C-alpha cells in the first residue's frame, strides 16, 4: 500500500508535466489543425533557457521559469512567422508542414547541441526544492509539490483564458472554423501567432518542470517527450484540451506503476500497446466525442 501511495505521488508529479506539455500540443492541433513535431524540441529549448538563466545569471527559479516560457513561446511564434505561416499561404499540403516541423526540430537540436554540447546538465539545488515531508513511509518532496502546483496554475490560467475571455472566445471560434472566425471579425493571423506562443510557452514550462524533476537537461530530451505528448494526445482525443490533461496524468501514472510492478523495460511497450488499443477501439480518444469538440 505504501509503495502504491508513493508511486501515485511520483506518478502525479510526472503526469503533471506530461499534462502541461500535452495540453500545448493538443491546443495547436485543436485550434489550427497542426501537428507540430518540433514541440518536443521547443520543450528542450525551454529547459535549456531556464537552466542557463539559473546557472549563469543566478536568477531564482520562478523568474527563470517564466522567462523560459516566454523564450519557448517566442520560438514557437517565430516558427509560425517564418515557416508554418508562409507554408500555409503558399498552399503547401499538410504533410509538407509535418516534414517542415521535423526539419525545424532538427535545427533546434543542432543549435542547442552546438552551443551547449551534448552533455546532460543539471539544475542547481535550490533551498526550497530539497525539502522532504515524511508521511509514514511515504515521502513527498517539496519539488514534486512545486511541479504539481505549477501545472495546476498553468491549467487554470489556460482554462480561464479559453473559457472566460474575449481572446479565448475568438480562439475557440477559430477552432470551430477559421472561415467563420474571419467572417465575424476575428483577427485570424494575429490569433494564430498567439496560439503558437501559448503552445510554445506551455512546452517551455513543461521543459523546466521536467528538468528540475529529473535533474537532467539534454539536447535530446525532446524526442522522448514528443512520444509521450503524442500518447497523451491520443489518449485524450486529438484536439481535446481537458482530455490531453487527463491523458498526460494517466500516462504518468501508468508509467510509474508499470515500472514499480512490471519489468521496467516493458514500460513503453505497455504504454504504446494501450495506445494502439485505444486508437483501434475508440479512435476519438477516451474522452473524445463523436462530433469532435475542439479546444
Amino acid at each position, binding site marked *: 500500500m505504501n509503495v502504491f501511495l508513493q508511486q501515485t505521488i511520483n506518478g502525479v508529479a510526472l503526469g503533471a508535466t506530461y499534462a502541461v506539455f500535452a495540453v500545448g500540443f493538443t491546443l495547436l*492541433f485543436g485550434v489550427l*489543425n497542426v*501537428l507540430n*513535431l518540433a514541440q518536443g524540441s521547443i520543450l528542450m529549448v525551454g529547459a535549456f533557457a531556464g537552466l542557463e538563466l539559473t546557472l549563469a545569471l543566478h536568477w531564482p527559479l520562478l523568474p527563470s521559469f517564466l522567462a523560459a516560457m516566454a523564450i519557448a513561446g517566442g520560438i514557437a511564434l517565430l516558427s509560425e512567422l*517564418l*515557416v508554418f505561416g*508562409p*507554408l500555409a499561404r*503558399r*498552399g*503547401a*499540403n*499538410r*504533410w*509538407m508542414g*509535418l*516534414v*517542415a516541423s*521535423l*526539419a*525545424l526540430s*532538427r*535545427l533546434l*537540436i*543542432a*543549435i542547442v*547541441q*552546438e552551443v551547449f554540447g551534448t552533455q546532460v546538465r543539471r539544475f542547481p539545488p535550490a533551498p526550497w526544492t530539497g525539502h522532504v515531508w515524511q508521511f509514514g513511509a511515504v515521502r513527498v518532496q517539496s519539488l514534486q509539490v512545486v511541479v504539481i502546483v505549477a501545472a495546476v496554475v498553468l491549467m487554470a490560467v489556460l482554462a480561464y483564458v479559453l473559457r472566460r475571455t474575449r481572446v479565448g472566445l475568438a480562439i475557440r471560434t477559430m477552432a470551430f*472554423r477559421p472561415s467563420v472566425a474571419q467572417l465575424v471579425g476575428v483577427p485570424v493571423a494575429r490569433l494564430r501567432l498567439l496560439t503558437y506562443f501559448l503552445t510554445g510557452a506551455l512546452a517551455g514550462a513543461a521543459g523546466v518542470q521536467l528538468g528540475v524533476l529529473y535533474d537532467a537537461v539534454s539536447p535530446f530530451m525532446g*524526442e522522448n517527450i*514528443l*512520444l509521450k505528448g*503524442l500518447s497523451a*494526445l*491520443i489518449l485524450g482525443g*486529438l484536439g481535446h484540451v481537458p482530455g490531453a490533461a487527463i491523458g498526460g496524468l494517466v500516462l504518468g501514472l501508468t508509467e510509474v506503476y508499470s515500472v514499480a510492478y512490471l*519489468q521496467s*523495460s*516493458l514500460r*513503453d*511497450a505497455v504504454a*504504446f*500497446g494501450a*495506445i*494502439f488499443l485505444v*486508437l*483501434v477501439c475508440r*479512435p476519438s480518444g477516451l474522452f473524445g466525442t463523436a462530433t*469532435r469538440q475542439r479546444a
Partner: protein
Amino acid sequence: MIEWLQSYENVIALVFVNSILGIGVYLMLSVNRFSLATGGLVGMGAYVSTLATLHTGLPFAAAVALGTLAAALVALLLGTPVLRLEGDYFALGTLAFTEVFRVIAFNWDSVTGGALGLDAIPVRTTLPQLAGVLAALVIAVLALRGGRLGRIMEATRLDDMPAQSLGIDVARVRLAVFVFSGAVCGLGGALAAHMNSFIGPNDFGLQRSLDAVAYAVLGGLGHVAGAIAGATVFTVLPEVLRFSAQAREILMALILLLAIVFLPRGMLSVGGLAAPRGRGRAARPATAEASR
C-alpha cells in the same frame, strides 16, 4: 570515374536503400494515408532476414524474400484494424506499431540481441543488386500507376465517397497497397541489414519512419521520382556538408527547412515534374476537410 564511384559506394548504397523506403511511403501517400509504420516494417524485414541468414544458412536471396514476406504479412495483420483510422489517427496508429516493434526488439534479448542488436551479419548486398532492385521497383510502380489499378488508387486518394460510388472497395485497395508498401519496406530493411553487418533496435524507431516520410514528401508528392529525389538529397546532403564538421547538422536542417519553405510543392516542382499532380487538394487527407 570508377574510383570516384568506389569511394562513395556507401553513400550511393544508402541512397538506393533510402529510395526504396521512400517508395514504400510514397505508395501509401498515393492512397491518401500517411504511414509511420515504415520503421517497424523495415525492422521486421531486417530482423527476419538476418535471423534466417545467421541461424538457418538460407541463401541470401531466400533470406531477403523471407524478410520481405514477413513484413508484408505484418502489414496485412496491422492494416486490417489500423486502416479503418483516417488522417492523423492512421499516422498515430502506425506510429504506435513502430514503437511497440522497437520496444519488443529492444527487450527480446534471446532473439533480437536486445539493445546490443545483432552483429557479424555477412555482407551480401552489392551495389548492382540494390540498383537492380530499385530499378525493378520503379518500373513496377510506374506500371502500376499507369494502368487500371493506378486509376483506382488515384480515385481512392482523391475522395473516398465518389470512389465508392464507382464501385471501388476503398478499404481493400488501401489494404492491398499497405501490404505492398510493407513488402517494399521489408525488402529495403532486409537489404540494408546485409549491407551494414549490424542491426539494432534504435535503427527502427520513430526517427526512421519520419525520415522515410521526409524522403517521399520532400522531393515532391505525386510522383515516384519525388521519393527518389527526396531520398537522394536527404542522404547526400550530410556527406556534402562534411567540410564543416562543426555546423553540419545546423546547415543540414537549415537547408531542409529553406527547401521546404521555398519549394512547398517539393523539390521536383523546380523541373515541373511533380507539379501537375501535387496541386491543390491533391494528397490532402480527406479528414482535414470533413472535420471542418
